[in-house]
């Protein structure tokens, strides 16, 4: 009775679990097996702000075409959470499948005529097979993976190989797991038609890609970048950044003989303290960073202003979540952009970086340190929960051993000896960036007083209007210097092909790229640009100038990136049309496609009213 066709390597499975019941590793096993079979796959964790007992979902999209954004429309639900079962049943597409624990009979309310039911007595099977209650609970998860393997034709060898890797050193745990897999598969073989129409087939589409979450990539990047001081305060979804840094540093930075560490991590008492420590360490010549999320960013405002004005390199990784306030702390959003860009009172502007995938998390983390030290200013990396906490397929990490750390303009003792008078805020090179010294460098030269108050070129306290103005004008010169230094955007075409452009950044990448294909299928051609940094390179202005309409895709309510474009570039509401998603779930290609086609339709339907229409669109984007 399936209504779904041609579903080889192209479907979505959703696991409905209970928080804290150990389903995560079973679900990852499922995903990783598909990855190993050379098939593009994306998992997304949808979990509550809670530790145990509440519903949690794990959504896996398998896509032959390599579409790695979220997709609506669930083909297959694995339901092991009675609490959410009613919703879970509803979430299955017509013609899709619903796998449930048939140890108890399914209540009528869960019965839909338009979907297929696959009942497996998970509980009974496990009770029979295992005696330890914890095992009974845990292996239910492995049993359903076994069942899925049978249904989707996941290669058993691959699953076994993965278990072997997982339990390296604890090999005696392997047989029980394999047994559970087999239990599940055998039940399918015995009771159901298999494989299903939706199933997987080995491919070679992964190349040398890796699978990792963005936060781990940031942590690893910080190790490679030579960061030695990390100060942080736990907050979802950023916590695993410093945890990963810690794990990698423990691996690579501990003297095997003495046990001494080439790094220091402090769990601060709060985010004000964390950023203060970063500023202190950076001032003193160590590469230092912190990671946080929205509430932490808000608390850092004052100290970010200090770092801006006192010109201290400061690296902050903000893993965004759904705001405002505590909002939905376990959901994703791109809504700290405006705050990050202009954090703190007074006239301030900060360098931002927008990674889209784990490889970029790694690369831009390394770049963040170079930029912060070269520009002597805060650099805020804006990633998000989706990127940070979900596993993603990514190009492998790369490192050029010839790459040196760019520590910026620093005068050592020898250099100081060659200078008549050191001026900490003298714009010697006419790029807005002055030379700094580390404390302790020279007995009589190069010492100066760092402060958040105005001063002259020689770091002498001053309330003189002229000195103040020269200083803040130099900061703008530095800002302009930054425009040519920050990572350039990715432009998708050598030459424009359309009057329409789309502009996106961060975790909208996958869905935006898929949407471009969907649009193409409807004969709508669009050019595309992906922004990686702020301030904007000239390329961004060129892209806007060379298109009639630019759709700006972002995952927030208030069109924050568009706001930055409006402020910092020459653009306007008529030209920039927002495509927004802000309900906490990652944006989908279909959503982008629909919004863009609707906009284009409405533009086309009243070509003479374009100007007025532009205004109307803008009003929409403001009022939505």
């Amino acid at each position, binding site marked *: 009775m399936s209504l779904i066709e041609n579903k080889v390597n192209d479907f979505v499975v959703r696991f409905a679990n209970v928080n804290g019941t150990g389903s995560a590793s079973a679900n990852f096993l499922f995903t990783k097996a598909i990855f190993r079979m050379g098939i593009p796959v994306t998992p997304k964790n949808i979990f509550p702000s809670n530790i145990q007992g509440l519903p949690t979902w794990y959504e896996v999209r398998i896509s032959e075409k390599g579409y790695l954004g979220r997709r609506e429309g669930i083909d297959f639900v694995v339901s092991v959470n009675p609490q959410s079962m009613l919703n879970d049943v509803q979430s299955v597409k017509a013609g899709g499948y619903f796998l449930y624990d048939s140890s108890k009979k399914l209540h009528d309310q869960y019965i839909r005529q338009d979907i297929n039911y696959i009942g497996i007595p998970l509980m009974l099977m496990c009770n029979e097979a295992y005696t330890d209650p914890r095992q009974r609970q845990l292996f239910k998860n492995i049993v359903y993976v076994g069942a899925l393997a049978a249904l989707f034709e996941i290669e058993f060898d691959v699953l076994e190989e993965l278990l072997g890797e997982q339990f390296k050193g604890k090999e005696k745990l392997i047989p029980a797991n394999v047994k559970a897999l087999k239990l599940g598969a055998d039940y399918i073989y015995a009771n159901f038609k298999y494989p299903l129409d939706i199933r997987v087939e080995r491919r070679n589409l992964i190349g040398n890609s890796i699978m990792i979450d963005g936060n781990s990539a940031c942590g690893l990047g910080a190790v*490679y970048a030579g960061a030695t001081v990390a100060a942080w305060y736990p907050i979802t979804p950023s916590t695993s950044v410093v945890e990963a840094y810690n794990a990698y540093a423990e691996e*690579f930075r501990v003297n095997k003989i003495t046990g001494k560490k080439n790094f220091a991590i402090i769990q601060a008492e709060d985010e004000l303290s964390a950023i203060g420590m970063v500023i202190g360490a950076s*001032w003193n010549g160590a590469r230092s960073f912190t990671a946080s999320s929205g509430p932490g960013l808000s608390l850092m405002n004052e100290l970010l202003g200090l770092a801006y004005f006192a010109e201290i390199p400061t690296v902050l990784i903000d893993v965004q979540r759904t705001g405002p306030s505590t909002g939905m702390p376990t959901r994703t959003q791109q809504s700290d952009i405006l705050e990050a860009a202009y954090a703190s009172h007074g006239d301030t502007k900060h360098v931002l970086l927008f990674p889209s995938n784990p490889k970029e998390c790694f690369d831009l983390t390394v770049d963040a340190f170079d930029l912060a030290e070269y520009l002597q200013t805060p650099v805020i990396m804006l990633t998000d929960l989706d990127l940070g906490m979900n596993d993603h397929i990514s190009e492998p990490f790369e490192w050029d051993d010839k790459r*040196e750390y760019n520590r910026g303009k620093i005068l050592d003792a020898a250099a100081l000896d060659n200078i008549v008078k050191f001026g900490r805020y003298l714009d010697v090179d006419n790029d807005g960036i002055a030379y700094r010294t580390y404390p302790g460098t020279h007995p*009589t030269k190069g010492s100066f007083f760092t402060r958040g108050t105005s001063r002259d070129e020689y770091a002498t306290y001053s309330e003189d209007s002229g000195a103040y103005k020269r200083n803040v004008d130099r900061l703008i010169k530095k800002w302009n210097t930054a425009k040519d230094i920050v990572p350039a955007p990715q432009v998708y075409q050598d030459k424009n092909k359309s009057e329409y452009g789309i502009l996106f950044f961060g975790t909208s990448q996958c869905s935006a790229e898929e949407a471009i294909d969907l649009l193409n299928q409807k004969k709508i051609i669009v050019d595309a640009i992906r922004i990686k940094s702020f301030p904007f390179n000239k390329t961004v202005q060129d892209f806007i100038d060379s298109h009639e309409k630019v759709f700006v895709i972002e995952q927030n309510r208030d069109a924050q990136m568009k706001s930055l474009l409006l402020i910092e570039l020459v653009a306007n509401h008529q030209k920039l049309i927002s495509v927004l998603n802000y309900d906490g779930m990652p944006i989908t290609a279909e959503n982008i496609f629909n919004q863009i086609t609707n906009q284009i339709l409405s533009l086309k339907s009243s070509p003479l009213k374009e100007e007025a229409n532009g205004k109307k669109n803008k009003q929409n984007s403001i009022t939505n």
Partner: protein
Amino acid sequence: MSYTRPKFRHPELIKNKLGYTVDYYEGALSTLCAGCGHDSISAGIIQACYELSIEPHRLAKLSGIGCSSKSPAYVLSNSHGFNSVHGRMPSVATGANLANKDLIYLGVSGDGDTASIGMGQFVHVIRRNLNMLYIVMNNGCYGLTKGQDSATADQGSKNKTGNINLFEAIDLASLSLELGATFVAQSFSGDKTQLVPLIKAGLKHPGFAFINVISPCVTFNNNVGSTKSYDFVREHIAATSTIDFVPEMTEITAKYDEGTTKKVKMHDGSFISLNKLSQDWDPLDRLSAVTAIHNARAKNEILTGLLYVNPDCNDLHQMLRTCDKPLNTLLKSDLCPGASMLNEINADLR
């Protein structure tokens, strides 16, 4: 009584071990009010650094915001300084110290900067036993914002505008003891004889050293009725002992006779000598120090001197087991696992 006084009186004549006279340790001209207690403390810092033969550029001065927090600019012009933001000096100092364990860290703060907005950071820098000397120039008020009561103002104390403080004071010395500070002292800006050796001992202490210095604000809190005025403090001060700090390798002279003297040996071989200890109090025992402060408070006395010291403590670097070289001197070769390791990592992620 202190051997520091004669030197202090004619500082310009004598060179220290490094060959510097005391003026080498001075800073920019103070812009504080004439007579402000803070300036006396600055003079004490200058004197102590001079006497200890500290190389100024090997010391970093940090502060928050306030009249007190301005004062690092008025000492040691060859030291790097960092006048950060209000109440956040402890975190900045923590970061700085982590980056380079080889410098000496001097933090200067005010009672507003520490006991109000900075309370959280103060508590936690103590808990981490950061190797630094933390001086609070405590005037019971907010000097720079024109004299509002601070959280260290005593209940019932009257400030210049006639305002009577309603709340119990936070006693920073006893609070820091409660929090496990490993060196706690209290002094008075008007008593350089006591202050200079305390600063020296604090600078040498291998962990978090805290000195709460009562420092009258002549402009806003030196009136009759204020318990932080010069007059009131002079009348209510009770010194626990006279203190000397004897640097490493200094010959022990006869005057430190046992019995009335307690010697506390520091990790580098220097020692603190305390004379005329009160009976029921041992500066090496935390609870006894707590009790001494409580008892003094009950008698309306301000106990000064070295209240407690634990000379054998582990500082933050020791607890974290950081490497011997300062972290800010490590090179890419020390830090970066390199390309081939990255390929292995990639392989593990497939």
